């Protein structure tokens, strides 16, 4: 069943970002697509925007959005349409490592 812009979709917020959502782990967002849902999320909680999007308004590289159990990059990205019963999650990917040359210590 398709949703309308007035239908709300729950989006799960990672623990450290809950300081920007009043401590809430799930926020109901409205919108017919993933992009509209994210727009509504950052409209409700503007301080989240800098953590999710870069200066050009593109999702940061380490920020992945899952629609149920699928990464939206493998669907239609932010144009992916939302249906009733869908759930969204903000999922970071993590990387790093030590400097190039071994250190004697």
């Amino acid at each position: 069943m398709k949703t309308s812009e007035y239908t709300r979709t729950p989006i799960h917020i990672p623990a450290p970002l809950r300081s920007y959502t009043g401590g809430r782990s799930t926020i109901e967002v409205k919108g017919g697509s993933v992009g509209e849902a994210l727009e509504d999320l950052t409209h409700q909680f503007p301080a989240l925007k800098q953590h999710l999007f870069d200066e050009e308004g593109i999702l940061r590289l380490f920020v992945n959005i899952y629609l149920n159990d699928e990464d939206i990059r493998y669907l239609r990205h932010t144009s992916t349409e939302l249906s009733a019963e869908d759930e969204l999650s903000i999922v970071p990917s993590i990387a790093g490592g030590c400097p190039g040359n071994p250190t004697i210590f």
Partner: protein
Amino acid sequence: MMQTHSDILDAIRMHGAEAYPEECCGFLLGRITEHGNYVGAAMSVENRRETSREQRFSISAEDFHRADLAAREQGWDIVGFYHSHPDHPARPSATDLAEATFPGYTYAIVSVCGGDAEQITAWSLRPDRSRFESEPIEIISEIFVTP
């Protein structure tokens, strides 16, 4: 501040030694409290890097999503990550900073020297993402946060 138990730190050290000379990585599960990040469990995860595994680690979004669902089922949150620095000090590198994710997570690093796990340190990313700041580790014996 990272609050945890000695057996959790031992498990991280053991994982670092087992993975040597490659980097290990995993999740810190617990709860964000008024005192900082309480870590009640550590969950190892596969280093998804295909090359330079002695100097790099990567945790896929898919693995994070799966771990997050498992943590939620147990009543925990993912409050941070750990990884090892084989033959390097337990300090964040430029790579760690460049590839860091959201501020608010605890980033624990264990140095592994010649196969022996040594110091564990904890760090948090400044809100402006400019650098990591050292986070004290408090070892507690009492379990005062339950899932």
